[in-house]
């Protein structure tokens, strides 16, 4: 732990030698299906409402009820929101994992446990607090069958006392959580108070962890990436959505359904959209391609296995030049893999998805704000370039709660791209669907139903000439493929540009997506603990823009941080940068399925730099 994390000594009201204020990670070890999610959200929000930067990460199994789940809350005054490797405060609710959870802690950590588990005998270098949950819950919850759910609220109260979380904020968070369910809110609030009273009467504070009011979250929102993405799609003007349930993407279309039902029903009570749960991912993407062809802003959301199934249609959309947006909420593959764990493992498979020569635009959001803005970018780019655009989110971003500044209303008007209307056709007389009129590789299209005898063209996945007629001529094929390449080159200048901090070091980091949060913290650790300065570029899209090439040129050693085994971003970069520069690229790939932490990057960089 860095020395800067410590508050001055001698201020503690309790016996501890030091106070660690607004810098801790709390882990709740429980069983999924036990209702602990509400308790954890209340805890998270209470700390957030006290103005302290906070993040919550749910590490859950692929199961509905009965398997171990861990929820980690990190409070950090410097605003770091990446997963922290070390757990400072364990709330051990799951008898099955309790022993292992306790043994894994670093010395000095605190443990709150269910009294009958007798965990305090396991180690003598930790602080233990025992809570008789069953006894307490019996006093506040007369109905036996509700006790299992209410029990979890007791640790919220205990923790509020031990960490000095303002009980007024806890109540506010709890009432927000249960919204209109007043009875449930009252019952749970009783449990929180019982936990608080128990701690006040029976537990003496022995650990150094405390929260103290700050002013770092004022005006901010808390949202998960899938909700943010759904909002972005709604404001992007999406009209057709086809999807097939798969973790961790399902909540994106589900949130979208909720938003659209609230805000996109016309004055006549009719929907200005169509959302269809398809029979599989092949049908989902097929509907997107059909709708995109007919002029709708269409999208689907899926994860790795769905991407594999969508390959054929994506190739068709690339070659026939049909717009569409595909959200890939990445989880750990290959195959079923770890369905509830996070990864950045679909970069290569999406970049060139489908057979033959294909290349696709990828957008790489790192934050909930970018889920919102890139949803809009994705539709604009898809229609501008008449192609599929992937948005590569991941489970960590999509399903966990993140703090953010409120989203900005989109100021740019919607641009539907090069679509010829009846009037334009009347002026032009005729058009050739795949002709490069403007030299940017992007042809003009017409929509079915356009009332002009020259509007129609024959869309096909087979070889075609400029007029979209069937052709197997070598020159037609080559010209068309070269034009598609030109179109992709044009896209380099229109995709979101990277975030760059350069000019201070010969060492550069390249990262993308959620790796960003561990990376920025690691750079501070390197500077503060080892006096090692680094530069940083965060890629936000593929194809790579000019800045990415320049960054590689400017640095002697470029470390590519990513969450997969095969260094997929590095591989894409190698294809793109000058061959003489490829040797500068070094892999820092991680594949454990947990959100990346800063310490791992810091340690690895020091080793790789030979320091």
């Amino acid at each position, binding site marked *: 732990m860095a020395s800067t994390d410590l508050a001055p000594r001698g201020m503690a009201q309790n016996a501890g030698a030091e106070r660690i204020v607004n810098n801790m990670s709390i882990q709740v070890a429980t069983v999924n299906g036990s209702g602990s999610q509400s308790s954890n959200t209340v805890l998270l929000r209470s700390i957030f409402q006290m103005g302290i930067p906070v993040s919550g990460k749910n590490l859950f199994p692929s199961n509905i009820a009965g398997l171990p789940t861990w929820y980690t809350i990190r409070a950090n005054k410097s605003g770091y929101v990446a997963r922290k490797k070390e757990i400072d405060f364990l709330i051990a609710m799951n008898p099955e994992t309790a022993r292992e959870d306790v043994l894994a802690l670093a010395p000095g950590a605190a443990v709150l446990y269910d009294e009958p588990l007798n965990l305090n005998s396991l180690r003598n270098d930790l602080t233990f607090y025992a809570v008789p949950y069953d006894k307490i819950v019996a006093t506040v919850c007369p109905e036996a069958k509700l006790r299992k759910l209410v029990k979890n609220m007791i640790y919220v109260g205990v923790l509020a006392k031990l960490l000095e979380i303002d009980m007024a904020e806890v109540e506010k968070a709890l009432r927000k959580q249960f919204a209109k369910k007043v009875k449930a809110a009252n019952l749970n609030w009783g449990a929180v108070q019982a936990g608080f009273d128990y701690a006040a009467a029976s537990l003496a504070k022995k650990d150094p962890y405390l929260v103290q009011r700050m002013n770092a979250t004022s005006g901010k929102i808390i949202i998960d990436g899938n909700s943010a993405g759904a909002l972005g799609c709604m404001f992007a003007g999406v009209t057709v959505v086809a999807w097939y349930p798969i973790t961790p993407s399902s909540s994106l279309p589900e949130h979208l359904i909720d938003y659209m039902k609230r805000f996109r029903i016309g004055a006549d009570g009719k929907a200005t959209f169509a959302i269809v749960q398809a029979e599989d991912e092949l049908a989902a993407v097929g*509907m997107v391609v059909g709708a995109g062809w007919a002029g709708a802003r269409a999208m689907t959301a899926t994860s790795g296995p769905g991407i594999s199934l969508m390959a054929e249609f994506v190739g068709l959309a690339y070659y026939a030049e049909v717009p569409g947006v595909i959200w890939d909420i990445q989880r750990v593959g290959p195959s079923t893999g770890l369905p509830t764990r996070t990864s950045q493992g679909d970069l290569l498979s999406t970049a060139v998805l489908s057979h033959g020569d294909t290349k696709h635009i990828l957008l790489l959001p790192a934050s909930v704000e970018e889920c919102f803005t890139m949803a809009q970018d994705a539709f604009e780019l898809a229609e501008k370039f008449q192609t599929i655009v992937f948005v590569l989110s991941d489970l960590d971003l999509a399903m966990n709660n993140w703090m953010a500044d409120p989203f900005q209303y989109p100021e740019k008007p919607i641009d539907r791209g090069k679509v010829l209307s009846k009037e334009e056709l009347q002026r032009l007389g005729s058009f050739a669907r795949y002709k490069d009129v403007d030299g940017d590789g992007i042809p003009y299209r017409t929509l079915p139903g356009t009332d002009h005898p020259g509007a*129609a063209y024959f869309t*096909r996945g087979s070889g075609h000439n400029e007029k979209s007629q069937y052709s197997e001529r070598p020159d037609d094929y080559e010209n068309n493929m070269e034009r598609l390449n030109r179109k992709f080159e044009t896209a380099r200048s229109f995709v979101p540009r990277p975030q760059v901090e350069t000019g201070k070091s010969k060492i550069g980091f390249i990262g993308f997506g959620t790796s960003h949060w561990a990376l920025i913290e690691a750079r501070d650790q390197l500077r503060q603990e080892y006096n090692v300065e680094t530069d940083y570029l965060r890629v936000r899209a593929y194809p790579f823009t000019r800045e990415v090439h320049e960054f590689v040129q400017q640095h002697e050693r470029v470390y590519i941080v990513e969450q997969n085994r095969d260094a997929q971003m590095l591989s894409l970069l190698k294809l793109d940068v000058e061959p003489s520069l490829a040797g500068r690229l070094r892999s820092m790939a991680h594949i454990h399925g947990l959100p990346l932490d800063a310490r791992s990057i810091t340690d690895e960089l020091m080793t790789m730099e030979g320091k």
Partner: protein
Amino acid sequence: MATTPSSTPAPKTNRIGLAVLDYRGGKTTLCAGCGHNAISERIIDAMYEMGVQPERVAKLSGIGCSSKSPAYFMNRSHSFNSVHGRMPSIATGAMLANRSLLALGVSGDGDTASIGIGQFIHLMRRNLPLIYIIEDNGVYGLTKGQFSATADLGSKLKTGVVNDLPPIDTCALAISMGASFVGRSFSGDKRQLLGMLKAAIAHEGTVMLDVVSPCVTFNDHEGSTKSYKYMIDHEEPLQEIDFVPAFADISVEYDPGTTVEVTMHDGSRLRLRKLEEDYDPTNRTSAIHRLTEAHEKGEVLTGVFYVNPKAPSFLDLLNMTDQPLAHLPQSTVRPGREVLQQVMEELR
């Protein structure tokens, strides 16, 4: 000798002033005598006679000989020749995007009953407004004559291979899954097929027509049950079909004892003169029963097996606005600032 200038007579036109030529497509590249070409001709006739604006039509297909055929009719309509067995999803997307289109899907027995059976079944469940034609010849033509899943038990390939798996009856399947207009015809039966296609154009919901369409190259020999000869010998029409379009304004008496009249969505009337006294095309259960019986007897039953013009379509179920979604303006599809503000407030 006095000469009078001869004027070429104006071409015959339909009710929207178009000639049959305006419904033509490219020159076919299918084999001479292929049943599919006859079906293309009937589609042209039906669209012309019904006075459908060609620009309103979206032609959709999968992969195979059948799926190539949209190139050979109606050049003034947009067309999408997509991927094998997946035309239903393309059609669904297109209709969701623009409900004012008249969607015409052309598939084959391989494209539908094998690789595409999943999407086919789910399309039927949704009752999407779409005319779905299976050009059914029992073989894969483009890959040179392998059996498809509609080939009858015991039918023989040219190479002597005998089919030992039972056929999928796409009509029985479509009826049981919820399609609201289901029939079978034969590419060689001009009158019946034309009548069915015209009624199909007037229907709002999924029309599934299985049209036996012999493959002259790979499945027209002795031992085939999808040959011209076999069809001529075994076709058992259920009804004689008469279609009275809504715009025709004809009132002709009919005998309810011998004729079933169905009023279509647009007010047209489909008249089915019963050749089988008891057959009721509005009864789903008996339709499936009669098809099963036909299989047992070795008959090739044709006609309108089932029709329900009142079944709600998928677009009704989705409560979609009447305007095509593809053309909704920004003011409709992008909620205002106050909406974003409200959502942000809720997330604080």
